[in-house]
């Protein structure tokens, strides 16, 4: 009887196993539909509304257009016309007259008018959430944000395709700012409470429509047949939310993803696998951003410029990036990164000179290794950046500086940095738009800014010059001013130690013919830049 029961049990297991195997074997992947592009992100977007985010730009970039776009040409970011075809700037640099492209309609068929542009500017101020800085530059901006006025007094609509904008102060980078996804143009008539949440409410003039969004799972974009530009190769985009990088990696190799962002992959996997097996399918673009070692001048040791310069001389940046980034990063020596307007190629950085560093420390009275400070690290730092932290700590140790790496939870890290009390940390800034004002103002534009970025840069005169620089109307004068400021802040004051700019790498699947990543200040991309194989 015992054997009978055992046999029955074994039979049951075998039947179940056979059934399962049969079902699994029957499930074969079908051919992918033509024009479909599949990619993945690590985190889902918070909102589709640019008025409420400075990071989730994939939908704004592909569903909406701006007056201008920033595109990469020959490794340099260039401003190109988009919804605006012509513009004229007044001699005082305050008033801009714009002409809109004729015949552009939103995806619901509504024509694009100058009133939509005005509404898009004002909406950012009325919501008073994110991205208010640019429309605040327009005359009357503060009144709209403070609810003292309903419309921007500095915005004047002449007719459906002509309008002018008057700024409170000249800003030579204004046009570049208008290319930021923050300045996406929305349809005033169809605006609803569901904007940002409901896919159907996302009415733009861009090449795609949002047809589906399932939180934490995926969203889908399809071609907008009312788009004014050339018809793109990709007719449908599915963006999956895959939080595990290894799963993304397997999906790409399995043919379930057509495009993978290698920024999210472990650098060891990128080097050992993608750079070998898929070497011919990797495309890259400059991030137009800077990674640097920030030094807090309110720290008892770091307030001495000799100590800061010694730190710069103690770091063997070239060897560090060669070892950790394997040719996918270039050394930076200033504030304005390579690829950005006004970048200074001839700027000399801190030469690696540990003996010189020791001499400087001796001169500053710290020859006996008294200097110690905390090197704060965000717990979300990538593997490569964690290695950079370790390298810096070890290199500083060689010249007698004890920099202890301490990891903080992301929120606690931001809190400490915002308090102005973080000693030293590695920071990265990717430009939102192609103008040095973006990075200069953020870190050195006011005493408050240098405090909240834990730099505590003390030179009020330089801070005033940084704040005034955007108003220089003449491009060559403005470039000269930024480069002079850069020399002073970094070369003379060593307010931070510039490290490198790394490349943004993508790998293309077998269904993709080409992809030219463009403005890479953001992690997102223009889907129109992807060409699929027939």
């Amino acid at each position, binding site marked *: 009887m015992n054997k009978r029961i055992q046999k029955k049990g074994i039979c049951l297991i075998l039947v179940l196993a056979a059934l399962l195997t049969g079902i699994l074997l029957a499930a074969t*992947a079908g051919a992918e539909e033509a024009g479909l592009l599949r990619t993945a992100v690590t985190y889902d977007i*918070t909102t589709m509304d640019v008025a409420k985010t400075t990071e989730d730009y994939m939908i704004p970039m592909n569903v909406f257009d701006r007056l201008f776009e920033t595109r990469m040409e020959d490794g340099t970011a260039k401003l190109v016309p988009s919804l605006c075809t012509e513009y004229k700037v007044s001699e005082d640099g305050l008033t801009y007259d714009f002409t809109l492209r004729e015949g552009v309609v939103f995806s619901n068929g509504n024509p694009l008018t100058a009133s939509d542009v005005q509404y898009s500017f004002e909406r950012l101020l009325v919501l008073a959430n994110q991205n208010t800085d640019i429309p605040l530059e327009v005359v009357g901006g503060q009144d709209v944000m403070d609810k003292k006025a309903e419309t921007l007094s500095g915005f004047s609509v002449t007719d459906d395709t002509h309008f002018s904008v008057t700024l409170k102060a000249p800003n030579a980078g204004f046009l570049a700012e208008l290319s930021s996804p923050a300045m996406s143009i929305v349809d005033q008539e169809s605006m609803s409470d569901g904007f940002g949440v409901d896919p159907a409410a996302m009415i733009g003039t861009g090449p795609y429509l949002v047809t589906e969004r399932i939180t934490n799972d995926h969203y889908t974009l399809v071609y907008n047949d009312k788009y004014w530009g050339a018809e793109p190769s990709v007719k449908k985009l599915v963006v999956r939310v895959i939080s595990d990088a290894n*799963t993304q990696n397997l999906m790409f190799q399995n043919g379930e993803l057509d495009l993978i962002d290698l920024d999210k992959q472990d650098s060891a996997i990128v080097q050992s696998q993608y750079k070998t097996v898929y070497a011919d399918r990797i495309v890259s673009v400059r991030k137009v951003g800077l990674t640097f070692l920030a030094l807090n001048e309110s720290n008892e040791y770091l307030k001495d410029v000799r100590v800061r310069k010694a730190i710069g001389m103690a770091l063997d940046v070239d060897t560090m990036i060669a070892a950790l980034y394997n040719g996918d990063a270039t050394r930076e020596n200033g504030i304005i990164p390579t690829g950005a307007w006004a970048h200074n190629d001839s700027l000399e950085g801190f030469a690696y000179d540990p003996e010189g560093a020791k001499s400087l420390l001796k001169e500053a009275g710290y020859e006996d290794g008294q200097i110690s400070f905390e090197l704060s690290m965000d717990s979300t730092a990538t593997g490569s950046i964690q290695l950079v932290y370790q390298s810096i700590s070890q290199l500083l140790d060689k010249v007698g500086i004890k920099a202890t790496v301490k990891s903080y939870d*992301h929120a606690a890290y931001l809190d400490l940095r915002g308090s102005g009390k973080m000693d030293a940390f590695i920071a990265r800034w990717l430009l939102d738009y192609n103008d040095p004002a973006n990075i200069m103002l953020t870190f050195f534009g006011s005493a408050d800014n240098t405090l909240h970025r834990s730099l505590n840069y003390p030179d009020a005169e330089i801070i005033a010059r940084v704040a005034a620089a955007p108003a220089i109307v003449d491009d060559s004068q403005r470039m000269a001013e930024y480069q002079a400021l850069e020399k002073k802040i970094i070369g003379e004051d060593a307010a931070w130690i510039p490290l490198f700019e790394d490349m943004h790498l993508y790998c293309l699947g077998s269904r993709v013919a080409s992809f030219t990543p463009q403005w890479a200040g953001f992690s997102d991309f223009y889907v129109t830049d992807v060409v699929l194989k027939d």
Partner: protein
Amino acid sequence: MKRIVQALLVLLLVSLMLFVMLRIVPGNPVAVLMGEHANQATIDRLTAELGLDQPIHVQFFRYLSGAVRGDFGTSYSLGKPVSELMGTAFVNTLLLSLAAALFAWITGGLCGLLAAIRKNSIPDRLFMGFSLLGISMPVFMVAMILQYVFAYWLHWVPISGTADWRSFILPAVALGWNSAGSIARLVRSALLDTLEEDYIDTARAKGLGKSGVLFRHALRNTMLPTVTMMALQLSALLSGAVITETVFSINGIGRLAVQAITARDIPLLQGTVLFSTAIVIFGNLVADFLYTVLDPRTRKEA
């Protein structure tokens, strides 16, 4: 009734502890939400708008009054009502947990039964080896191995997601293997103990066949600890599928919790933790109830 009141008190205590903890740890959730490019003025303005600058007791009572009405607020990081997000996620977690529990109960039960019947035989060693492997291997490792072999290498099932029912097979096995191992070992040892009891000898002496002894007497008594364990395991599976959901990209409660922690998303974290606590409490209540149903002695004692 007493148990239900106790359960509600535990829930209240957990929410209070979580609420206080989330507010005393350093870090402004608004700064995380706004990202690197937000300026301090924007952060301050939104902190006030969300009421995070108000005294902690005001915030707690506002939260509590919403929670009793099923309103857990809006997720900072996903921009949707927490109750809506949890509703969708719960369906996925429930499907995954039920599939994992079914796998664990069927596989574990059968392995334990066959191992006990053929004690010290090769099948016994094989089944116990299978269970030991399930108990000792970390879930993430099992998940990655299964993913690699069955999805990447053999192409039998999708690597991740919830597009169709096949997507749940690997996560269910990864999540349920540990439970299957525990159940197999429990069934085996409980059955072997029961088979040694005097009343089994009596049943045999009365001329009852081997299957009759096994199914009518031995197995029924083995069910008591097994069913209790199964009920507790189901609640643990429902509240503890964090790693499995992350590796297989399943939009479940566990993955929401991870996202909430990373983004310091207070409403979402409170919602998911409270939900997990409620599930564990409910699982315990069910286990207690089943125990009284299966064992008449406990009813008398009660």
